[in-house]
């Protein structure tokens, strides 16, 4: 069969599909110009610190607490976005109901709204005098100016990621497998967990990673809703701003570099899983 031949060729490392050189060239060139060169400047600047200074900066108590706040809030926000993103994608692809068009239409709005406006609006809503905050305040939950508030802002800016990475895959997913599973007597939940989720998993993971990364880097909206109290509600990007305000470029880039490396490793893991899954499924 055809597939057989292709496989043999692959093993010998001969590429059948044309365009490798061109797409490699364009990808490397654009990645270089728009991302890697500017990024190298950040590395160079952080490199002005000696190793000792670098370690001192990134392990100072304030900075470490900033990392903890940023990472923990971004993690929870990404988890919430993953659960609801998956749900939204499912509802939008599989069900018909009035208002679906509208729902599908507004998913990207958090991107278009400047983050500062989002932050101001969310704070207005969730402070203990705001429409929603007052209700939560009655049952003793404070949202604005706490880590919960930070998480809410991060959820807001990350809504589109999971929905929009899962949606296209779900649309292309062949329903035959599910139907076959029902036929064989599998329950809904079981079918979802065993048949659908594995197919969606790489996309869900990618969406989770993106939402998480976005949360870590987010500054504009969070800074309004966080109380910015040292050791409690100061996020890492705020500390970068603090350093810049003191004209300590190298310190600022050092803090950013640690964030970047952690996110990079995370992304690398996610991409590896994604690519591994692809091989696993196809072979």
């Amino acid at each position, binding site marked *: 069969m055809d597939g057989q031949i292709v496989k043999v060729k692959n093993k010998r490392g001969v590429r059948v599909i044309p365009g490798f050189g061109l797409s490699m060239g364009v990808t490397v060139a654009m990645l270089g110009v728009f991302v890697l060169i500017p990024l190298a400047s*950040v590395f160079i600047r952080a490199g002005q610190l000696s190793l000792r200074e670098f370690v001192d900066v990134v392990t100072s108590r304030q900075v470490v607490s900033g990392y903890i706040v940023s990472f923990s809030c971004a993690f929870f926000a990404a988890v919430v976005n993953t659960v609801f993103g998956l749900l939204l994608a499912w*509802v939008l692809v599989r069900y018909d109901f009035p208002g679906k068009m509208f729902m599908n239409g507004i998913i990207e709005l958090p991107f278009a*709204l*400047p983050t500062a406006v*989002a932050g101001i609006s969310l704070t207005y809503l969730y402070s203990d005098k705001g429409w929603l905050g007052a209700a939560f305040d009655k049952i003793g939950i404070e949202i604005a100016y706490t880590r919960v508030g930070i998480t809410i802002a991060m959820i807001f800016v990350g809504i589109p990621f999971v929905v929009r990475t899962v949606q296209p895959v779900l649309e292309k997913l062949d329903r035959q497998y599910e139907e076959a599973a029902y036929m064989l007597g599998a329950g809904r939940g079981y079918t979802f967990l065993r048949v659908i989720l594995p197919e969606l998993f790489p996309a869900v993971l990618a969406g989770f990673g993106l939402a998480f990364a976005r949360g870590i*880097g987010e500054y*504009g909206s969070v800074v309004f809703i966080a109380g910015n109290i040292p050791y409690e509600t100061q996020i890492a990007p705020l500390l970068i701003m603090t350093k810049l305000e003191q004209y300590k470029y190298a310190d600022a880039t050092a803090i*950013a570099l640690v964030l970047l490396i952690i996110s990079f490793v995370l992304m690398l893991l996610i991409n590896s899983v994604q690519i591994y899954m692809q091989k696993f499924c196809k072979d």
Partner: protein
Amino acid sequence: MSKKQEKTFQQDMVGDGVHSIQKVIEPHQQEPNRIVKYAMIGVSVLFLFVMLVIPLAVVLVNALSEGWAAYQEAVMDSYTINALQLTFLATVSSVAVNTVFGLFAAYLLSKFYFRGRQVFAALIDIPFSISPVIAGLAFILTFGNIGWMGDFLKAHNIKIVFAVPGVILATIFVTFPFVFRELFPVMNAQGKDEEEAAALMGANGFTIFRRITFPHIKWALLYGIVLCAARAMGEFGAVSVISGHLRGKTNTLPLHVEILYNEFNTTASFAVSSILVLMAMVILILRSLIERKK
């Protein structure tokens, strides 16, 4: 067997043999299904309402809080219009650049297996994981007075940062991975068998892409472009660092919003934000219309 069921059964005789059986089984599952369905829709609607619709309502309510005339004045202000033009230019540029990049990169990483693909993919994602402030700073450390290319650019009288090119570069940077990110999972899931088959039959690269790859990815591409455009319009952090806030020259809409706000001009700032919301709405409606043609 009712007449209708018999009909589907007969249809399936030539079909895959699945639908008829499902039709028979379905009535048992219908009830809990419906509850699950409405519960899921309900939760989704509630989530979107609380997390998205209400905050947007706050923007609109504030925008109109001083009446229509004040709204119009804020929106028709010449600085607002300048900012709108720049935002438009930056958005179009970043969509164009990132679409080209996204197509090539997703093609490369999903159709060819080579060592280090994971690293490539992770590198492309970097703009997402980097704080926007640092993204802006990266360009300043490259092209600014304190950057390593600063002297060269100054000698040749080329201005990049604190001028329009810097704003565009920063916007491209923060939206860089969007199109790729949308295309990649779909192209990955699709695999490369079809392309390989076509290539073996002697089709050239462009034909393969146009005839085989593209039909699979057009909706993902549309999503990617819309995401990219929306994010480009709203980008604040990176552009804020690099623009210099020159009124009427390097202020994008989000920056203009912030400046109005900082001048204690709250209503106008929300009014200008609402332009962004409307622009996003227009793009999203356009997308729905294209999708409907499907």
